[in-house]
């Protein structure tokens, strides 16, 4: 019944926001920060990088040093972060300081075991021995290669299939893959809210990605978890915006940010992973 038409609302006249993005992980020996400005929502211009900023980095309130501008909006600081430590970042641009804080989650590689399981040999099993008492946010996914033999492209699995009953439903749809009932877009997210201090087995599969594949379990801090979840939710709503079913309940909401005075994300994660070079499966195509 409805109709769609182009409009010009002259939006985006307010002051531009400073955007700081950085995700810490102990697997890297350099901390990278991207600093840019926001732009009007309907715009063809590129995001304007911020080149003249002073960015300082703190570990447990100790000043580690200043970042150096590398190119475009990218600033770097050679440093390896450690699990269970608190980090703070402060960026000063034209006299205005924005900042964010994150505490790196504890290492999880000793708490989980990933193996192949199941009659089809394409089902994976994640065994978790949860001992933590604080809230934890887990994101499970896998990477592999797509494209041709000559031109393979590394990528994340488009969907994870599982019946794991405590998985967050926010990115869930009925499955079209094997005997599982649920598909999860890119990641299967869960928390230890209901499964704390238990031994947990999660059986899952993912869309065929060429060998080798790597199954990865992330343990994120609170901020990165909320940023990822709200980003995915918002992206889903925006991509569905013109669809008929969205007419009734369209209601945009903000992506989570922990950058005080600006926007973006300063988050962290630890991870555990296992690579499978070859999967024995006589039934595979």
């Amino acid at each position: 019944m409805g109709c769609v038409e182009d409009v010009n609302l002259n939006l985006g006249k307010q002051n531009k926001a400073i955007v700081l993005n950085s995700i810490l992980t102990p697997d890297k020996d350099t901390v990278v920060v991207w600093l840019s400005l926001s732009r009007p929502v309907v715009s063809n211009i590129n995001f304007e990088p911020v080149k003249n900023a002073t960015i300082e980095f703190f570990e447990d309130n100790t000043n580690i040093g200043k970042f150096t501008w590398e190119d475009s909006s990218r600033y770097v600081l050679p440093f390896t972060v450690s699990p269970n430590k608190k980090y703070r970042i402060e960026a000063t641009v034209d006299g205005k300081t924005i900042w964010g804080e994150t505490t790196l989650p504890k290492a999880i590689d000793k708490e989980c075991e990933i193996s192949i399981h199941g009659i089809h040999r394409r089902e994976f099993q994640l065994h978790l021995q949860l001992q933590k008492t604080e809230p934890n946010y887990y994101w499970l996914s896998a990477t592999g290669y797509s494209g041709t033999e000559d031109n393979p492209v590394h990528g994340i699995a488009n969907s994870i299939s599982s019946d794991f009953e405590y998985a967050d439903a926010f990115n869930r749809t009925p499955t079209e893959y094997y005997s599982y009932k649920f598909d999860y877009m890119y990641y299967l997210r869960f928390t230890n809210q209901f499964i704390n201090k238990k031994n947990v087995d999660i059986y899952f599969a993912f869309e065929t990605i060429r060998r080798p594949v790597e199954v990865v379990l992330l343990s994120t801090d609170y901020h990165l978890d909320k940023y990822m979840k709200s980003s995915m939710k918002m992206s889903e709503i925006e991509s569905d915006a013109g669809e008929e079913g969205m007419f009734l309940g369209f209601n945009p909401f903000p992506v989570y940010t922990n950058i005080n005075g600006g926007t973006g994300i300063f988050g962290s994660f630890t991870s555990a992973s296992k690579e499978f070079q070859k999967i024995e499966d006589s039934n595979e195509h």
Partner: protein
Amino acid sequence: MNINLKHKIFLLFLFYLPLLAFTQKNVTVSGYVIDAATSEQLPGATMFFAKQRVGVSCNQYGFYSITVNSGKTTAICRFVGYESKQLLFQLNRDTIINIKLATNNNIDEVEIKAPSSEEFLLSPTMGMQRLSAKQVEQIPMMLGEPDLLKAIQMLPGVSFSAESSTGFSVRGGSPDQTLIQLDGVPVYNASHLWGFMSVFNNDAISETKLYKGNLPARFGGRLSSVLDIRMKEGNMQKISGAFSISPIATRFILEGPILRNKVSFMVSARKTWADVILLTAQRLYDTEQVVTYGFWDINAKANWKINQNNRLFLSFYTGRDAFWAEELVGIQAYNYSKFTYNWQNLTTVLRWNHVFSPTLFANFSAYNSRFKQEYLNKYDEKGEKEYKGYNNLTDWTVKGDFDWFPLTNMRTKFGFNFSNQTFSPEIISFKSPEESFVLNSDIFTQNLISELYFESDINITQKIKGNFGLRGGMMSTQGKNYWSFRPRVSLRYSISNFMSGKISYSRMTQFLHQLKNTTLGIPTELWVSSTDNIKPGTSDLFSAGVFWKPTTKYHFSVETYYSLLHNVIRYKLGSLGIKEQGESWENYVVQGEGKSYGIEFMAEKKNGKLTGWVSYTLAKSIRQFSEINFGNPFPYSFERRHQFKINSNYAIIEKVKKGKNIHHSISTSFVFASGAFITIAEQEYSGISFPIMDEATTSNWFENRSLINTVNNYQMPAFHRLNLSYIIERNYKSKTVLWNFSIYNAYNRHNPWYYYKKGDKLKQITMFPIIPSVSFTYKW
């Protein structure tokens, strides 16, 4: 109880004592005023005793009582739309007089110059507006389906959200701050069809009152207004009915006597066509996925007049909406999936009217009101594996309401109610052969509410009349008791026989809240209770107005209001994107303040060939929460600064041909309103790829993110729309045929529903362009 309160009660007792002393010297006339054709009671009908120059209006059950001097006297009984009746009495003792009024078919109603205690001019009540089912029927609506809640939106001070939505706000209050009650029972969800139609079948309704100024003490439980809807009682004289069909639904009503003038019934039902059309279309195309949607509702009432002093009513309402999608892909049974989403109201009330004495009338009610919404995912046909979520609200209440008429110039109402409300928000369950679990079962909440009220209409002087009331009580929940005392005062000053001025103050408390993600009034919104952490909401409503009635044809009014809302709740910004399943809603809400003020002008023509009203409202409504918009006030979603509304019905042809009464009329409704405030991203910013997406093909998937810092940051363009309908009505003996040809949005205004970005373009969705329709009704 503090000293002050005791002092006030003592003074009130002293005030009443001398008045009671006079009650023995006069005679009391009491009885019911009823419709001559159907024997239905006529609430609001008035009796005026010319010699004594005193009058009284019937209560909501059509009962009146007045104490006058004994002797010979005349009285006039009148009611809008009925022939007035003059009666001559010789009163020597207390007398019961039941009066039958016949409907007035004359368009130019006989003008009665005698003053009466009608609500518009002489009652202290202000900001109260009536809508009859006939008026609702005449207002042109989309697809020819009369809709009470959309008719309400044509009144001044009532703001709407999105186009054609049933969600409405009264004087800046939230939709959940209006108490919507059907036959005295709260209805917790008022919409069908995702908020596009109200649940109230107009055929089953006799009258609706909207209280938006002062709220008398007999009403409680909401902060801003009361929508009091009364179902028909059932014709005591003969079987009658109606059948209607419109492009969206079909409906019927049947009413009549079970025992003539003793027991009557009324039953009405409505069902949409949408499911039939959708299913047929999909079967024709043999699709693997079946998606459909339907709704229905049923109203029923039985009415037993046991004797002059006792009457029983049993009312029932239920309505259900159901959406479902079923899919079977390929040959593998495990690819079966079914999604259903249902919501349902159910209300049942048993009422007993009892006349204790000519001056004391009582109504006792026991009711149950339930609202349930449920979504269900089934992953196999046997239902062995399913995922279910539901929200339930159940309300059991017992209450008593008394009308006491101790003196000619005094009328008192008092009563009590005890409620047990249970809330089960966001319960999630999963069931499979291997494992089952339930989340959130621990956030089940139970409220016990005990309240008393008292109010009295008192003629203080010839020119000044007041209504003074107090409502108080306690709500117990989760081991915590919330006490509240809510005074209500309204005063009327008669400037002349044709003009009066009124002022009022009401304090209100609300123990339950509706959490909303949209402003549409759709039932995905969650009813929750005050808890030990979430305080009850309170409000202070001030209003004043001038009312002018130069003739019986015309009413003019100017009303102004100022409302303060305390402890209103809403979701925190962005809650939808971060809320954990299984976590309580309490972690994601904030409490704050609200303020609204405005002025309303209304001119109404009550009878003649042209009837209707014109209104203009200038209003402002804001909300303020410490954690939203940096603590700054922001415009409320329903704020529309200017609202100009016209609603008219013009009788073009009135003639009698071959024994048939033929009536042609044209109805018009026009709305101009300032644009609504919405939350929209005005800027976007560069995102960062998620972990393990770094080198992936999807690395640019989240390249841009919309920047939303504040809510309701953008005001949409002005809203305007013209609806027209042409009604042809033919009456022959007791049969009526009615055709309604209507055009919704006659000049095809593209009012924005929302905006979204596609590529580098901004798109506007318009929900309802021009929509012609025709509907048919047959009454007998």
